[in-house]
């Protein structure tokens, strides 16, 4: 009896296996077929719209797979699918599994035909291009689009020899968003021209931060507000690591903001930080400023969480409150602010920072391995079109149920100059009638992207690590700098030179 069972099991195993083997041979298009077949179950995954075997071309419909790390592309894909019958795009948020870049790298280097369209952040693009992941878009006439894309966004999508490989849909020049009423209380004025002077240089920012504290306010909620607005001199010059004075000044500045108590001790992207956009926040102490969540608040940016935060802070004895004046963010930061401004809606202004910085944004390119490059180009050119970008500007997005919602937040900064020009004179009511688009456009046009290297984003984060080790007192300035150099040396031995 036992024997029969065993043989049956073995046979079943062999069959499963041979099925898998056959499957993968017959469908060269989708090496995943075999397994998908055996695993056909109902999938309610929110990100999955199409069937898992969608890569198959059936009845004249070309199915594309797009990989993304953010939700914008999910909306783009849904919208595209509604207006197209011959091409359908399945957008998958691969970032949920952790390291997006690694996923893309293993897939493409592994010879995978999927994804057809690869999304990427600015910091990832140079490596993707160097490794040859992206197809040449010039062959599809990308230059025609180039005429109306913000320069730095366009350049970011070019490889070292100037071939267009990726297209960005968003421009993200950075500056400072500030609350006018708080500026009035601290400095006695609130018009963008005069306030702009407070953010002209690092010294001016430090002075402003000290004045704000004296008056019982805080200039910033966190000490990371300068992150986007620094001048991004390349990290590598002639194969040498370029740790210039400006970067060391930044380190001192961050440390001073932190150690002189010039901020509200919030961390970026946590509840206290969001809360400080809406009004008064408790002043936290030395002890609670550590970590990412300063208090036991859950729920990120929800309203409940905010209430919870205030109640908990009060229970812990943080009854002193303060108001925060400014947030250093890229153009898309206005969406974050609008979502959390609450009663302070309409009380905001925007000024440029000490340097033309930028942050975030999204780019898409076609995989070199894709067998449906034409269809993929169709999607990309559609995405970059005036019409699509106009909708993006209007805050188009899909809600949870999958229904289109328009105008949730207006004034999404896109990369399409035609659209920005069209809305140049739009006034934004949240920003006291400031013409944000024209300010953004001006800032974006000043961004110098020519000296960027592929090392910038990694060295930037390594330097960030050194800065936080220094500001928290874990390392002295010297130790932190040496730690940074050690870190670079161990990662890029033989590639980059370090001069201590």
């Amino acid at each position, binding site marked *: 009896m036992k024997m029969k069972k065993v043989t049956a099991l073995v046979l079943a195993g062999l069959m499963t296996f041979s099925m898998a083997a056959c499957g993968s041979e017959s469908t060269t298009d989708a090496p995943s077929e075999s397994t998908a077949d055996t695993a056909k179950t109902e999938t309610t995954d929110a990100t999955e719209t199409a069937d898992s075997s969608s890569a198959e071309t059936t009845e004249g419909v070309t199915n594309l797979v797009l990989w993304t790390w953010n939700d914008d592309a999910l909306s783009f894909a849904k919208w595209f699918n509604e207006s197209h019958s011959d091409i359908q795009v399945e957008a998958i948020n691969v970032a949920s599994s952790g390291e997006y870049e690694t996923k893309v*790298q293993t897939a493409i280097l592994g010879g995978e035909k999927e994804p057809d369209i690869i999304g990427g952040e600015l910091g*990832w693009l140079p490596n993707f291009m160097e490794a040859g992941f992206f197809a040449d878009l010039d062959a599809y006439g990308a230059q025609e689009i180039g005429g109306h894309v913000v320069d730095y966004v366009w350049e970011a999508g070019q490889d070292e020899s100037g071939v267009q490989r990726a297209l960005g849909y968003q421009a993200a020049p950075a500056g400072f968003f500030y609350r006018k009423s708080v500026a009035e209380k601290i400095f006695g004025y609130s018009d963008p021209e005069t306030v702009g002077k407070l953010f002209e240089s690092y010294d001016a920012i430090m002075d402003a931060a000290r004045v704000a504290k004296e008056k019982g306010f805080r200039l910033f909620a966190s000490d990371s507000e300068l992150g986007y607005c620094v001048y991004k001199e390349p990290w590598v010059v002639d194969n040498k690591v370029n740790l210039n004075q400006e970067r060391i000044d930044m380190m001192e500045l961050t440390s001073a903001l932190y150690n002189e108590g010039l901020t509200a001790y919030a961390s970026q992207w946590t509840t206290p930080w969001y809360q400080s956009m809406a009004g008064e926040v408790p002043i936290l102490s030395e002890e609670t400023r550590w970590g990412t969540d300063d208090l036991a608040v*859950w729920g990120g940016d929800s309203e409940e969480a905010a209430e919870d935060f205030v109640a908990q802070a009060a229970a812990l004895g943080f009854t002193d409150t303060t108001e925060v004046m400014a947030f250093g963010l890229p153009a898309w930061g206005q969406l974050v602010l609008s979502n959390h401004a609450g009663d302070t809606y309409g009380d905001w202004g925007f000024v440029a920072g000490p340097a033309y910085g930028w942050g975030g944004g999204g780019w898409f390119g076609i995989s070199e391995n894709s067998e449906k490059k034409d269809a993929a180009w169709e999607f990309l050119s559609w995405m970059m079109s005036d019409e699509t970008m106009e909708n993006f500007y209007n805050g188009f997005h899909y809600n949870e149920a999958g229904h289109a919602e328009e105008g949730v937040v207006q004034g999404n900064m896109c990369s399409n100059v035609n659209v920005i020009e069209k809305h140049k004179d739009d006034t934004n009511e949240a920003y006291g009638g400031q013409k944000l688009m024209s300010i953004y456009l001006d800032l974006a046009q000043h961004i110098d992207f020519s000296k960027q290297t592929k090392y910038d984003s*990694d060295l930037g984060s390594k330097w960030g690590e050194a800065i936080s080790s220094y500001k928290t007192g874990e390392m002295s300035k010297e130790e932190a700098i040496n730690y940074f150099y050690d870190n670079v040396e161990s990662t890029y*031995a*033989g590639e980059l030179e370090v001069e201590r």
Partner: protein
Amino acid sequence: MRPLHSLIVKIPCGEMDMEKTKPVKKKRSKLRAYNNWGYLFVAPFVIAFLIFSVYPVLRTLYLSFTDLKLMKLNGTINFAGLENYKRVFTDKFFGRALLNTIIIWGVNIVTQLGLAFLLMMVFSDVKYRMKGLPVYRLIYYLPNLIAATSIALLFSNLLDKNYGSINIGLTQLFRTFGGHYKLIDWLGTKWPARLSLSTIQTWMWFGNSFLMLMAGVQGVSRDYLEAASIDGAGRWTIFGKITLPLIKPIMMYVAITSLIGGLQLFDMPYLMIGDTSQTYKHTQTAMMYLYRFAFGAKTTQVAYASSVAYSLFLIILVVSVIQYRLFNRDTEKRRHRDRR
């Protein structure tokens, strides 16, 4: 990775008696014609073994002497000699990662073996004759079976500084007794993070070690021990003369397999402490370091990762040999003495 480790764990005490097989074969030698069937039986395994085990290991070895950067198939590969190995041994961050690994593993192996040893003493004691072994060992062994990913996620939630149940529970406990508990950032500060990782490893593995030690002791029947005790041998004499020598090779075996597994520690710290955390530099293990160079975006340097892998292997080998020597020193001495 294949659960090779879990398979190795099943050797009772590392005795591999080849002798037993010989007489069997000699008897059969006249049936030589049948012996060719052996090739057929071995063939599927050997083919798979060559493809999936031998080739990758040799390929990695080859790559470690080249300058290949990306995992590209058709990329140009140049021979680089010993450059990568030179780099490994001067790489401060590899040193750091190795040190982290050894600290996390070292604390774990001491507590794990210590606990297992104590438990073994309790359960094998001829005087107290403890009952309930089947139930206790089931419970002690349970954490070992759960996926490391589940355990890592569970503890990163339980140990969170602010919303983790452990800190919340401790706060309540202190409050009940009128004290004040200053929140410990279990995963966000250097030593608490390392010790948390060690403790979780101990929690997962002490049951396994205990079972193996117990197996060694149970090799001798209780009657035998009782007979000894009736003969007037005290329990410490019995422990020293019978029990201890029995479990010594097992202790060594546990220590060595634990070393092989421990120096390859990956899942737990990788999942519990992200690279943006300030404690990352204190908990990054050698395996995480290797992974970063093998697969991590931006820092992919396949050839270098390969040499890190082989360096790690060399270190494991050397430490294993040292361990083996240490454990066997007394035995060898005694044998030496006996011979004289």
